[in-house]
């Protein structure tokens, strides 16, 4: 990408709402029988759906954020929204009204949920530059995101304990060289001089800001918050050449959106990479001049992936075997390899394994139940058992 285009993309700012996409439809559904609803009624609806007590003002900000996004999308109209909890008290009865467009998408949701989600994607793509930037990258290539989740593994072995990290930060010191070396290893490429400079600069600013709090907070909690902020330095520095200069939380939110839209998937379990890979699971066609979505094709969706599934699973299993993994493959790794190879959603993989658990004339599946090993492992649920290990045998 040319630097001019990069600068242009960088100039565009955006605010991706910290919401879950189904909540938009939950809120919209509240207008099904009454065209005018208050913020409080939206809040109660969300509480009911989450099966939580609606006591006090629980989920007030979720109700507000969803209402704001619905308004930006032109699906409801409203006068004003509360900035904080105190303002909510006086504004909880503020009215919002569904628009004709809102009615239309609600009807679509009732008749064909998949189409409603596609429509939601089109609308959000139209108003969110960050989303446009991410989609443009993903349609060209998978995105490698070296999220820093462990100070010890991803920065320096000196930071095996949170106390060591806290002590360094309080003295405005940090193993930036170790961080860059690890990033280079994880990205499997050398960091550009500008990238290193931006990281150095960002870390320096971070230390100025966080040296004080380091002496006041509990070490483990502080370390967690610091790593979160460190990602806000690292990710924009490494991904800005792709026009992705936004903070870590925005990345996370967009990953979850793609997952819900079934348009892209992300995994941090691929054995070839010590980072998170984000990859497309559908093809989006743009108008010749770009900017407008002409079509979405789920060309590696459930049906396509189901065809000769066990053969594909065996190929993924063999990839793991070549890396010297055990006879029984860990589900997380097998899932990651399979999904990246076949550009499919993890949920598609889980469903198809469940469908094919008896094997076939050609392939036999042996499964072991899941024994909790790490907090991020996700087994496959088959019947009433959690499967953690799988062996695929060609008869």
């Amino acid at each position, binding site marked *: 990408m040319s630097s001019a285009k990069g600068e242009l993309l960088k100039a565009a700012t955006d605010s991706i709402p910290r919401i879950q996409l189904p909540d938009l439809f939950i809120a919209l*559904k509240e207008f099904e029988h009454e065209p005018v609803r208050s913020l409080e009624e939206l809040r109660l*609806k969300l509480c009911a759906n989450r099966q*939580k007590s*609606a006591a006090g003002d629980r989920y007030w900000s979720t109700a507000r954020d969803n209402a704001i996004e619905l308004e930006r999308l032109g699906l409801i109209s409203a006068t004003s929204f509360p900035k904080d909890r105190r303002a909510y008290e006086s504004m909880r009865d503020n009215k919002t009204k569904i628009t004709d467009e809102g009615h239309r998408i609600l009807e679509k949701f009732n008749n064909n949920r*998949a189409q409603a989600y596609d429509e939601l994607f089109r609308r959000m793509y139209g108003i969110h530059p960050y989303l446009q930037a991410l989609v443009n990258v993903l349609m060209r290539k998978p995105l490698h995101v070296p999220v820093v989740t462990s100070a010890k593994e991803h920065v320096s072995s000196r930071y095996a304990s949170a106390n060591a990290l806290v002590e360094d930060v309080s003295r405005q010191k940090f193993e930036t060289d170790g961080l860059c070396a690890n990033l280079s290893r994880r990205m499997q490429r050398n960091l550009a001089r500008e990238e290193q400079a931006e990281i150095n600069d960002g870390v320096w600013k971070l230390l100025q800001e966080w040296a004080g709090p380091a002496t006041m907070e509990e070490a483990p909690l502080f370390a967690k918050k610091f790593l979160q902020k460190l990602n806000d330095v690292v990710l924009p520095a490494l991904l800005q050449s792709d026009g992705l200069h936004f903070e870590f939380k925005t990345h996370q939110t967009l990953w979850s959106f793609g997952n819900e839209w*079934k348009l892209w998937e992300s995994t941090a379990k691929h054995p070839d990479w010590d980072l998170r890979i984000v990859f497309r699971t559908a093809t989006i066609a743009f108008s010749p001049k770009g900017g407008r979505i002409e079509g979405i094709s789920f060309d590696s*969706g459930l049906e396509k992936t189901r065809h000769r599934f066990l053969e594909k699973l065996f190929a993924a299993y063999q990839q793991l075997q070549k890396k010297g993994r055990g006879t029984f493959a860990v589900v997380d790794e097998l899932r990651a390899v399979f999904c990246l190879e076949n550009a499919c959603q993890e949920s598609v993989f889980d469903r198809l394994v469940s469908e094919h658990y008896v094997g076939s004339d050609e392939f036999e599946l042996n499964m072991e139940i899941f024994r909790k090993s790490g907090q991020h492992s996700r087994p496959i649920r088959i019947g009433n058992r959690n499967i953690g290990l799988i062996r695929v045998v060609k008869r």
Partner: protein
Amino acid sequence: MAIRIAGRRSIMQDDFRFVQNPYRVSEIYNVDEPGTYEPLMYGKQFDEFYTKFFLNPLSKDNNRQVIGAIWSSYTANRLGKGYGKSMLMAEESKRINKDFGASKLKHFGVAKDDIAANPFVSGYCSFKEASEVKSFPAALLDAVAFILRSDCGESETVHQVLRRRICERIEAEESYEGESIRRALEAEVRRHRSLALQLTHKEVRAFNEHLCSEDTEQLINRMAEIGPRVKASQGFNFVHIFNVFLRLAGVNYVTYFVDQIENFAKYARRQDQNIRILRESISETSPTRDMASFVFQMHIEAQHAIEDWWDNIEHLPSLDPKKKINSTRIVDLQGLANKKEAILLASKYHSDNRVPRSKTPNPLHPFNEDIIEQVRRSESGNPRQFLQKLGGILDHAVSDNRVKLDLAYVQPLLEDIPEAISAEEEEGEYSNVER
């Protein structure tokens, strides 16, 4: 007829469109007046109920006995009250007896020939302090009476149909059918050596005679007149005779559901002796041990009360729901596990109580799905408490002259909602579908 006060609008009838509040203040099951029954509210456990207690045993040629339990093991409600165990046991037994289980087998996809060859019946009984039913033999004799007087077909009782089937099978002598059946019954009883029955005993002989005659009412009256002491000492003999009677009629499977076992745990004077007799009768005596299943209503308190004798001393099969190995013999009712089940139950109550020919915007009117779900959550999915709460909300609305109900009105009437009840996943309701 209910009163109407002049000049006062009846919100219940005019706005809510109910003849009366559909929900009782105390929703406790009564076998004679069961009220509204919606089996779909049991969700997955309904199919489990049939699979474990009927379909699996009937899939075997012999050795059909199941000793199992219907549980409600929710730990916050140690007495397991209000989960619909009694209603499930009794109402499904009535439906089974209506056609010897034929329509149920058909529902589960059993072939026509197999349905005809495998008639079965089901009985329900309960330990009742007020009726002096304090021992297993007395309770099970009630279950026999329950089966015999159950409606069968258009206008007959199970007793009459069984008797007719026996007449056909033994080619009973015309005008002397009762005597022919009695002779056949006694001959069949004598074939089972483990049945140490004194057929000349006054009560046994009277029971046999009434069982073989055609008047069901007299038979039931006779059984009701048997005193508690005779019931306790001879009760199982009547059960064994009835099982032989079933066999003669070509019915080779029966399930006995035993309710309110906590009353046994609380009031029976000699629990040890009672449980020993139970074991001998159900596990060691033929034909009962091959053709009769016994399913006990259980909850945590009842289990604690009987477990020492049950498991450790008499070696009866464990009824502990926490042990995975027992899961093929146990159905653990989860209450209203999701919104759909709650909606089904409320809709059924509403349709049974609507003002005739009235029109409502939806079956839940004046509630909506969100209110139903919030009430279900607030009552941890307990069906009885859920129904009672809905009734309370309607009464409140009438008292407040409130014709429109929404979450904002209902919320203050609900107790604080437990955060961690077991609810089936419903997160897919608004999520995108798989592509």
